[in-house]
């Protein structure tokens, strides 16, 4: 056993020594090659850094770098690569005889903020196998929006509200807004006014206020999201989009936010609750119909007008049949009123049937 361990120890030692000798031989060979004084290529780049300065984000900028072979053997550019996908290098020629020159064109897609990227040039220059070109830029947004979109929050029918978004050209150059276009919004009236701030004699400005005024007329949907399309004569902001959002409050509201889950009930038993429905704008109204849409177990058994018809107390009863299985029952309840707009409300109600 001890003998076999000793053999392995010697084998390992032999491997280490062989490796060390191989490395030393290779090193001395390469030293010998460099020390020979043979002709060699040498790469030289004129001004190997370039700062594009402040540029609009997304814009493509280019710069040409000149590469010389100042050695006495042909220089071969083996590989040109970049540190980031935003930079595309193109080389004119890859084989340069002594004293010849070539160009590398760097195309940079500018990103927002202060950024830098590198171009790597791998060649057969033994002293500098990889030369580096540095690029820098400061990208500014083409347009700034304050706030980021139109927000009307929650609106009521008939209520007029305004929301303003300020557009500022990133480069500070004055421009003119040519058109503003909104999609058709059903049930809501909208007007748009574009105002330049401190305009010049031609009515151009680097800052514009877009004021949107909205008045909901019908409750066809409870949420609106829309996009305002703006076109300008600014070369970097030909087309711009501003998002907007508002929610529309239903003209009929439940008082005291009642729970629509009515709790538990045993088969053959009833659960009853009272709900008060009011008009949001203090208008009087009548309840014309109440209809369960999914489950007849839920019924409005009594309607009582309060406050001269501005509010109504509804008594909702869930009648659980005697053989009802354990589980959940739920329905939407259609409540139709005589209000001229949004006359239908469809709240959901549910109950948990406990068979045991």
């Amino acid at each position, binding site marked *: 056993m*001890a003998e076999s*361990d*000793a053999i392995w120890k010697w084998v390992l030692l032999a491997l280490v020594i062989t490796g060390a000798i191989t490395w030393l031989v290779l090193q001395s060979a390469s030293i010998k090659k460099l020390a020979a004084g043979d002709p060699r290529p040498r790469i030289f780049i004129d001004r190997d850094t370039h700062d594009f300065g402040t540029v609009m984000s997304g814009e493509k900028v280019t710069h040409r770098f000149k590469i010389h072979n100042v050695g006495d053997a042909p220089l071969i550019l083996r590989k040109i690569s970049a540190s980031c996908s935003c930079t595309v290098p193109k080389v004119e020629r890859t084989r340069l005889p002594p004293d010849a020159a070539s160009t590398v064109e760097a195309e940079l897609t500018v990103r927002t903020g202060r950024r830098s990227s590198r171009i790597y040039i791998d060649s057969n220059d033994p002293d500098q196998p990889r030369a580096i070109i540095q690029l820098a830029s400061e990208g500014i947004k083409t347009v700034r929006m304050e706030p980021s979109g139109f927000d009307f929050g929650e609106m009521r029918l008939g209520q007029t509200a305004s929301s303003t978004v300020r557009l500022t050209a990133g480069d500070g150059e004055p421009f003119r807004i040519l058109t503003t276009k909104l999609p058709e919004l059903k049930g809501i009236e909208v007007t748009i006014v574009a105002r330049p701030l401190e305009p010049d004699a031609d009515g151009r400005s680097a800052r514009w206020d877009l004021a949107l005024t909205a008045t909901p007329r019908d409750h066809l949907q409870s949420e609106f999201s829309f996009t305002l399309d703006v076109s300008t004569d600014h070369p970097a902001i030909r087309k711009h989009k501003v998002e907007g959002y508002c929610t529309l409050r239903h003209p009929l509201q439940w008082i005291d*936010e009642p*729970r*629509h*889950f*009515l*709790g*538990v009930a045993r088969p053959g038993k009833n659960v009853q609750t009272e709900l008060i429905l009011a008009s949001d704008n203090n208008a009087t109204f009548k309840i014309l119909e109440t209809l369960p*849409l*999914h489950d007849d177990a839920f019924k409005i058994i009594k309607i009582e007008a309060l406050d001269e018809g501005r509010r109504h107390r509804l008594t909702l009863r869930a009648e659980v049949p005697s053989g009802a299985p*354990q*589980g*959940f029952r*739920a*329905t*939407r309840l259609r409540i139709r009123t005589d209000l001229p707009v949004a006359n239908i409300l469809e*709240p*959901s*109600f*549910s109950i*948990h049937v*406990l068979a*045991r």
Partner: protein
Amino acid sequence: MSSPAETPRTLGLGALLTVAGLTALSLVMPSATGLHAELSKPINLLTQTINYSLAMENSRGGLAVIVDLRPTDDRNKNPVPDGAVIVPEQSDSPEWEQLTPLLESLEGTPVYIIFPASGEHPAYSKLRSLGLDLWSVEMPR
């Protein structure tokens, strides 16, 4: 050179050191590199939790509703005594249409979720999108 008597002891020490080094590497490398297999854990992003017995009590009292996201086998082996809402696994299943009035009516009512022991129920993200007051049930071990 070591004496013949010392060789087995040195080898033993070397082996011990190697085992210790490998053990340390096996502990450190997975978390350092992220290259490791891991058992799937229950996906539970809820910060509100409720004890199982209290959840059952509140459900029986009509104060809350339990949604059981466990696989069918687990549900059958250990059913919720008073019943729970079962939701389809596919988010585009037509069964969701039937469940809509029930889920809509639960706004403002605590909804207790029993999560699968491991992995994620495909419908969980849909439940989260409904804006309900969701709680996670801590199951007894």
